[in-house]
């Protein structure tokens, strides 16, 4: 019965969009090759004060949050048993699959001694007190889990229904891991900053960093699902998922209202809210973040807002930008190096990041067109090649 629940989109694969994306990937590949031949300094603007730049913060810290759609939806569908959202599950997983797999690729580009990467797996080198150790292992494990969670799409594509049904019996275990592992490493992306202490602005530094990062990861996960569902149904002329997304947005709205309340209350309690009025770059970024977080709350929690497809889409985009900015700020803006160094990414450095994102979109499009990912619909109203 469930065999026809998902189906590939019967669309042309080589479209102008795909070619532009491929070109961006090629440019990035050139700079990645340069990095491997001449070192990180030849491509990036990293310096003695800023060992981490765009590649770590955007490709990995923000990139994996964009990949949290699968995690966020799994929590809702499989753990809280909200079956009505099940149709959004597979595309969300696919986004997660690429978000995480490519973050893994970005790690290999960024690591200064990548050829010793496997040391992470050797017990005599392991250092369990290191948050980085935990993040690395959890992300690695989660990438594997994501591929397993997504594998029914491949198995259906190639008619291996027996294997799929066998796997299905154990799927609950992988689903549980698929919620546990991101809970661990997304919160740990916040814990990574705990050791920074006074090097971070008190507007971001709190002992609650793990919680803040976990909540923003979930929020970005839901936002990415809303974003993707809206874009896909509009681009490919599929029936809108609006009613179900509007429902989802209520929950996200309350979650973010709680987040903002917590953030302000906690800052006020520890007496650091004054830094929000310091009139410096940190304060400015703090208020931009706050405004961007408030916008989706306002939209999602008013009936008129969430029922309008445009407004809800705007809310989802604002939430994605807010969550990304929160991470970028926490890792780079809020941070003051010991000596006087400044950092702004170089163009080649940015092109690599752009290339990674382009590759993500490209693979996503390729997969939805060739594999049963999207929820099966009645034939589209007016077929149009895109």
């Amino acid at each position, binding site marked *: *019965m469930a065999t026809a629940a998902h189906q590939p989109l019967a669309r042309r694969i080589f479209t102008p969009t795909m070619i532009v994306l491929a070109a961006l990937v090629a440019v990035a590949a050139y700079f990645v090759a340069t*990095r491997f*031949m*001449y*070192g*990180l*300094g*030849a491509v990036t603007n990293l*310096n*003695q*004060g800023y*060992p981490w730049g765009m590649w770590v913060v955007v490709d990995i810290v923000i990139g994996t949050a964009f990949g949290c759609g699968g995690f966020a939806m799994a929590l809702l569908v*499989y*753990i809280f*048993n909200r*079956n009505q959202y099940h149709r959004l599950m597979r595309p969300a997983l696919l986004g997660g699959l690429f978000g995480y797999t490519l973050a893994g690729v970005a790690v290999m580009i960024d*690591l*200064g*001694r*990548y050829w*010793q990467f496997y*040391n*992470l797996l*050797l017990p*005599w*080198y*392991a*250092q369990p007190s290191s*948050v*980085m150790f*935990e993040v690395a292992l959890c992300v690695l494990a989660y990438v594997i889990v994501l591929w397993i969670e997504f594998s029914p799409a491949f198995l259906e594509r190639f008619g291996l229904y027996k294997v799929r049904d066998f796997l299905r019996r154990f*799927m*609950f275990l992988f*689903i*549980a*891991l698929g919620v*546990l592992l991101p*809970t661990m490493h997304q*919160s740990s992306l916040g814990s990574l900053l*705990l*050791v920074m*202490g*006074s090097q971070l602005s008190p507007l971001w530094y709190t*002992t*609650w960093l*793990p*919680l803040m990062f976990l909540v923003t990861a979930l929020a970005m996960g839901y936002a990415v699902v809303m974003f993707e569902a809206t874009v896909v149904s509009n681009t490919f002329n599929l029936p809108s998922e609006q009613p179900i997304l509007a429902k989802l947005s*209520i929950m996200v709205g*309350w979650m973010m*209202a*709680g*987040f903002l*309340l*917590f953030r302000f*209350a*906690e800052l006020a*309690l*520890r007496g650091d809210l004054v830094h929000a009025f310091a009139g410096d770059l940190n304060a400015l970024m703090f208020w931009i973040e706050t405004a961007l977080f408030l916008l989706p709350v306002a939209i999602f929690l008013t009936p008129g807002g969430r029922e309008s497809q445009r407004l809800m889409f705007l809310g989802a985009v604002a939430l994605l930008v807010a969550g990304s900015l929160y991470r970028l700020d926490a890792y780079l803006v809020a*941070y003051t190096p*010991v000596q006087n160094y400044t950092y702004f990414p170089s163009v080649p450095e940015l092109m690599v990041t752009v290339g990674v994102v382009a590759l993500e979109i490209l693979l996503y499009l390729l997969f939805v067109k060739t594999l049963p990912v999207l929820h099966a619909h009645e034939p589209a109203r007016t077929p149009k090649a895109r």
Partner: protein
Amino acid sequence: MALNRRDFLKCAALGGAAAGTAASTEAAAAFIRPPKEMPPKAVGMLYDSTLCIGCRACVDACKEANDMPVEMPVHLSDWNEGTWDSPEDLSGRTLNVIKAYRHGTMEAKDRETDGYAFVKRHCLHCVDPSCVSVCPVSAMRKDPETGIVTHDPDACIGCRYCVYGCPFGVPQYDLDNPFGKIAKCQFCTHLQEKGQTPACCDVCPTGASLFGLVDDLKEETERRFAMQPGTLYQFPRGNLSEDRPRHEAPVPKYIPAVYGPNEAGGTQVHYLSAVAFEKLGLPKLPKRSFAQVSEGIQHTLYKNLIAPALLLAGLAFFAWRNARKRDQDEA
């Protein structure tokens, strides 16, 4: 039903926020792990900025003793063809550097206004080092006896978390090398093993960099603080446990504090100065190490993996139950 669920979500979001804030900072303090103790045979260095004449003999000796390449900043390349090592700060190629504080007319040494002063930068061999705490592959290790913090490039994966996390900005990755390494002062372990003095202390002509046991260096500091400024003192040179010819100079007017013992859990390299430490670029840090906070929270969350295991069991149960329900509904 729908209303109930919505109310539940509302309450969960707002209640969680309220409860969380109420339990805020003080509760978090309970997570902090106890401080680390100074190792029994801790070796250390006393750097006295007032004695330093900025000759950079130590920078040169350090390069030679540790086989580090010559460094030539691009903006100096007009007059420097690459033979004269002229590092401006710690980098992937420089483990030790002398920097200057300069103000106004720079008339007098060791004066904050219209004066100048020198400072030496390298690893402080923290008692509770952030670099050791953050390294995922134990490439940074602290010797349990001597307290020396070493780096093993064969273990290192180059994640640069130690560079980001060191509160003194010490470890550096060589960005200009496709096979770059982390560079960091390892207290000339290879010389100490042979019973020799670390190169920078060995060559220092004035005793500004002085090597010894942390306890002995503490006594030396107290002797200097006890003297009247202006009285002549025989400053020991090189290695406190050797009897080298001393350097005679008047005792300066120190600011009455030592930089190191009370910074981020304490360090084994200590600084004396006549100008404020912050002017020298030594960061102002709390007494507690940051590793105490981060490890404390991490260990609380992951103690013996009990919490993750329980969470996994719960998640698996719900996933299993809901999957079964779904199958029944479909059947």
